[in-house]
């Protein structure tokens, strides 16, 4: 573990046209993926979208129906799980109940015939701050401790890739946040490629360098968390990563990098670059609630403005969230930071505005 801190990151993973079918159901429907070495990669998606199946294929616990898996330059598709330099932190931990903690952590090292397995296992336990529990059985530990043992048991083998299948799923919120920071720290310390599966978008965004959003066995979009959040390519991604207001639009005029569009008879301006070229029909304009501002009715600074009536306001200390009903009945969500600006009241007519730079445009699904 100590030398792990300085060791060169090697775990480069490449999935090519990966499929997995069960009887008449396609769990993984053609995944192409490149995970650069040493990165913290998050696979994000709703329940049943094929995240675990993808991970199990990488680990060698499930055979792909078709497609290839490369580790660095080696094609590992046809190798068995125990032949792959890949380790998994299972969703259920799967700690061996008949072995004590140190034997659990040392299991992989002993299989690899590492001579000083005990020392290394102890170091790994120190890393997760459980060295004093070495002689106990898994059932004597709390859920969070077991989770850390599972992490130590995987990481101690210094795999090229560490797979984490919703490892924080069973933890309460506070412990979850602590472990997120801890995981990130450990990843930076050991430099192993982490592939982290989760359906918690906040977790994915806070931890990962790259996030892939999965839907029904495919990768819907992939990118850095900020890019994914600010410029989602589809309504699914936009809604999966937080909230967004979507307005149907039609392009009316293009002038350089500014495009004029119309939504429900209101003329709005968007950046030309934001308009997808391949899907000109059924375009929708998206704006995140925190990008919307409450402005005065006779404002002349903002280019994009809409007016409506406040139908709901909820204050949570950090911010106030309003629902503003548009003349055509749609309710837009607006988040106003608690920065001292005047708050609107229920039933009040307000004008909301946004910067064209802060909006995104998505095509029809």
């Amino acid at each position: 573990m100590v030398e792990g801190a300085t060791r060169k990151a090697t775990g480069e993973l490449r999935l090519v046209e990966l499929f997995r079918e069960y009887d008449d159901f396609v769990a993984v429907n053609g995944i192409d993926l490149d995970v650069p070495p040493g990165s913290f990669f998050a696979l994000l998606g709703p329940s049943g979208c094929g995240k675990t199946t993808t991970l199990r294929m990488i680990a060698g616990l499930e055979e792909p129906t078709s497609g290839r898996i490369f580790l660095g330059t080696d094609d590992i598709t046809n190798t068995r799980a125990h032949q792959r330099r890949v380790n998994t932190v299972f969703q259920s931990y799967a700690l061996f109940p008949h072995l004590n903690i140190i034997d659990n952590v040392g299991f992989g090292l002993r299989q690899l015939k590492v001579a000083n397995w005990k020392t290394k296992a102890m170091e790994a336990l120190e890393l997760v701050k459980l060295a004093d529990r070495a002689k106990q059985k898994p059932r004597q530990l709390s859920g969070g401790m077991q989770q850390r043992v599972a992490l130590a048991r995987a990481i101690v083998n210094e795999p090229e890739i560490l797979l984490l299948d919703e490892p924080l799923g069973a933890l309460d919120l506070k412990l979850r946040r602590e472990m997120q920071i801890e995981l990130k720290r450990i990843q930076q310390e050991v430099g192993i490629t982490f592939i982290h599966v989760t359906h918690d978008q906040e977790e994915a965004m806070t931890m990962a360098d790259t996030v892939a959003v999965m839907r029904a066995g495919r990768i819907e979009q992939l990118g850095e968390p900020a890019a994914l959040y600010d410029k989602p390519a589809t309504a699914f991604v936009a809604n999966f990563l937080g909230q967004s207001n979507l307005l149907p639009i039609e392009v009316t005029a293009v002038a350089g990098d500014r495009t004029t569009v119309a939504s429900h008879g209101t003329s709005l301006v968007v950046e030309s670059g934001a308009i997808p070229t391949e899907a000109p029909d059924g375009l929708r304009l998206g704006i995140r609630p925190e990008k919307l501002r409450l402005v005065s009715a006779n404002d002349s600074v903002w280019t994009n403005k809409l007016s409506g009536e406040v139908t709901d306001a909820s204050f949570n200390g950090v911010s106030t969230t309003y629902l503003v009903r548009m003349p055509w009945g749609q309710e837009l969500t607006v988040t106003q930071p608690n920065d001292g600006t005047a708050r609107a009241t229920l039933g009040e007519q307000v004008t909301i505005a946004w910067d064209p730079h802060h909006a995104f445009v998505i095509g029809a699904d």
Partner: protein
Amino acid sequence: MALVVPGVRPVKRRAVRRWGTFTPLILLAPAMLWLTVFFVVPTFSLASQSLQTGDIDNGFVLTWHFQTYAEALGRYWPQFLRSLIYAGSATVITLLVGYPLAWFIAHRSGRFKTMLLVLVIAPFFTNFLIRTLAWQIILTDTGPVTGFFRATGLIHVLQWLGLVTSDALLYSPFAVISGLAYNFLPFMVLPLYTSLERLDLRYLDAAGDLYANGWNTFWKVIWPLSLPGVVSGTLLTFIPAAGDYINSKLLGNTQTVMIGQVIDAQFLRVLDYPTAAALSFILMATIIVMVGLYVRAAGTEELV
């Protein structure tokens, strides 16, 4: 208990608690009565019998004649040893056959699971004696099994191992051990099945993920987790097999006599009750000691 429930007087609460301490005893009573009548009393009468002298015509009297034990052991130790070896062999065979079978039923049989379990216990629908007699037919000299052993030369292997003395399978140690293994197989399979059925297959994934090949996955994970089943299965097979007298009587010869057969003869034909009782006691003591050592070695209390 610090909680005071309004309207409930302490006296009443104490009464409830006293009832609580007696409840387990009351629930135990039928079993205790059963054990007293059918185990403790016969054991004492047997113990007393083993220390008596006399004969069937003039009656037996308790003379504390411990000599009977030494004489019985001196005369019948070969049958004793043979019983333990035969029962041990049969246990090993049932384990080797039963383990894969139990694994298959537990994890690979799909919708045939119930049917296979019924098949495992199906022999119980037939009388023990009839089942053993059936083995006389199976192993008969002109039957296909004997034919197969002769044709493949396996009969010579058995001869070399001393499991048969001629080129016949019936009336040999081989037949006795086979009969024992067959008759007690369900006692092995059922506990093994229960243990293996409970085994979470995700541990197998974890072992594979942690670089264990098939053999090591079995040896380091599956086997230790199934030890409770192995222990109960081997005990349920070995104990009755060691005292069995039907298989050696129906499938064996004069050189395969087991201790159960000797006790049977002493009690019912020779009518030497003290010797029979002493032999029963020695058998019981031997088995208790062996089981104790075995359970301690297997360390079942360490298991989940």
